[in-house]
């Protein structure tokens, strides 16, 4: 089975104070195969952030099944979800989300602390990915001494350090200028070529173009699922 993600009949509802049910996701189904580069798009309020949170194991669906890397995760508790996030998922956020008072090496190796790895191993693995992101020599700097593009590369190194099955990137270029955005997206493309599965949430068509496949969410439902190029040609 080559599927990293398998979601079927996924529902997510929020309950208002008055007991009013608000369905944010309604019967969403799709699979992501190992090595795919998928972009998720959708207008704000469409439920794409909720979908991303569920896919990233930060939230649980109200109903339906989510199989991540062959394991059903929809019924796991907080600590079990934390363990899944640690071992199988790498996150890249819009605002980088680095620990500001820790060195680059500390930031990159942070997931390995929660994986229970020792100091020497953490440092060594962190250095491997710091080099891979062309950040040699910056390992003992603080994040605020680095440019936005470099900070995002630190975040990508951190996402990779525990060798996860899948990378979730939530608007990774949202805080970057267009030139740096291109650099970062090129990096993602290279990672994808190396075999990493990447799921990208964005609202910018230019960024989505780097992906191979597009899933468009609208009003809590899957509206489009197919080639990015085909969708872009259809809408333009």
């Amino acid at each position, binding site marked *: 089975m080559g599927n990293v993600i398998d979601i079927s009949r996924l529902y997510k509802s929020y309950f208002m104070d008055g007991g009013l049910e608000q369905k944010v996701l309604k019967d969403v189904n799709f699979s992501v195969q190992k090595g795919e580069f998928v972009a998720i798009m959708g207008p704000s309020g469409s439920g794409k952030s909720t979908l991303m949170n569920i896919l990233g194991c930060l939230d649980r669906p109200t109903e339906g099944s989510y199989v991540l890397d062959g394991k059903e995760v929809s019924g796991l508790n907080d600590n079990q979800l*934390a363990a899944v996030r640690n*071992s199988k998922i790498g996150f890249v956020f819009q605002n980088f*989300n680095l620990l500001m008072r820790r060195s680059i090496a500390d930031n990159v190796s942070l997931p390995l602390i929660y994986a229970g790895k020792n*100091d020497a191993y953490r440092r060594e693995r962190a250095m491997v990915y710091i080099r891979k992101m062309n950040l040699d020599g910056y390992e003992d700097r603080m994040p605020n001494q680095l440019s936005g593009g470099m900070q995002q590369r630190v975040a990508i190194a951190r996402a990779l350090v525990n060798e996860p099955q899948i990378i979730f990137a939530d608007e990774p270029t949202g805080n970057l200028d267009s030139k740096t955005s291109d650099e970062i997206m090129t990096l993602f493309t290279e990672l994808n070529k190396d075999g990493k599965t990447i799921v990208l949430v964005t609202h910018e068509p230019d960024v989505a173009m780097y992906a191979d496949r597009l899933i468009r969410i609208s009003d809590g439902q899957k509206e489009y699922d197919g080639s990015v190029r085909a969708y872009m040609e259809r809408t333009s």
Partner: protein
Amino acid sequence: MIWLIIKEAWLSLSSHKLRSFLTTLGIIIGVSAVVMMVAAGQTVSLVINNSFASMGGNLLMIHPSFVVTSGIKSGQRPSITAADVEATKTLRGVEAAAPIVRATAQGVYGANNWAVSIRGTTPDLITVNKWEIERGEPFTEKDVKSASPYVLIGSTTANELFGFADPVGQTIRIKNVPFKVVGLLASKGQDLMGNDQDDVILMPYTTVRQRIQGSRIPDRVHFGYIKVADDEDLEAAANRVKMLLRSRHNIKEGHDDDFEVMNMTAMVNTIKTVGLVLSILLAAIASISLIVGSIGIMNMMLVSVTERTREIGIRKALGAENRWIMLQFLTESIMISFMGSILGLFIGITTSQIVGYIMEYKVPISIWPIILSFSVAVIVGVLSGIIPAYKAMKLDPIEALRYQ
């Protein structure tokens, strides 16, 4: 794992140095205050116990009652005689009794001159007041009868008059009368009121009355000490003394005593109780500052959790389980209170030793404040850290990541 948590906590605390220091200061002040107050209380008890021991236990004191004229205390009627004091020795339970005549006069030895505080008494005082003779011999009952010019000298007086020379066998002059020093008293230190008990000269009361005061009534004394056997009831003994003195003074039924019997042991016990209550009170007040200090920790930790909401979100997203988040914050608060306790202990002990040294009191260092402050460190750290740590643990990672 534990080491890693401690390292993480240290990094977090040291990234806010001033804030961490000020919070630690609250615990430092609290713990050092408790340590100093306990030391003060123990010193007071020690001083009381020592002076009690140096005064001699199970003691009664008889002295003439005060004359009150129109509601004003105008002096004492000289009613007690050495014979009165001597007579109490016939009573059941009385082991020894010594009269005291007080006098102050200038003592001279060679070029040295010192205002000596003289106690005229009998050899019984040695037993009653637990004096020890370092060198030489005490004067005897025979010396009392013959008003011999023999004196026992206290160590302070001896120092002032003789310096480092041995006073025993020397002759000093008081009011131009030569007195032979027959013995040197062992040092007793300060009494309850802080008076130097070693600045004294003991001699037969008859000698004081006749040779120094030149009195025509040699039997009059200022007061008397009565030592009661340790297994006797002091109150009952006091009553027997009272009955005896009333009959000796021919005081009729319905008339007031012309003397007073004071129970010295009861007095000391009262002072002891007051001292104990005082030290408990001091420790209680000091521990309030410890409570304030621990509220300071909780306050800082709550601010820290709010401030680091994003950090908590990041850590959770990257796979930190709840216990990790909880432990991280608990370790920070325990670390603060632990460092505060160690420093507070150090400052408390040092300060009380320095103050003790300046005030010339021996301040005991006991194990209790040490055990106390370390258990307080852990308890305060856990108690003031648990609510913030729980709050951090309960944060929703999605909300926390969104927090600006």
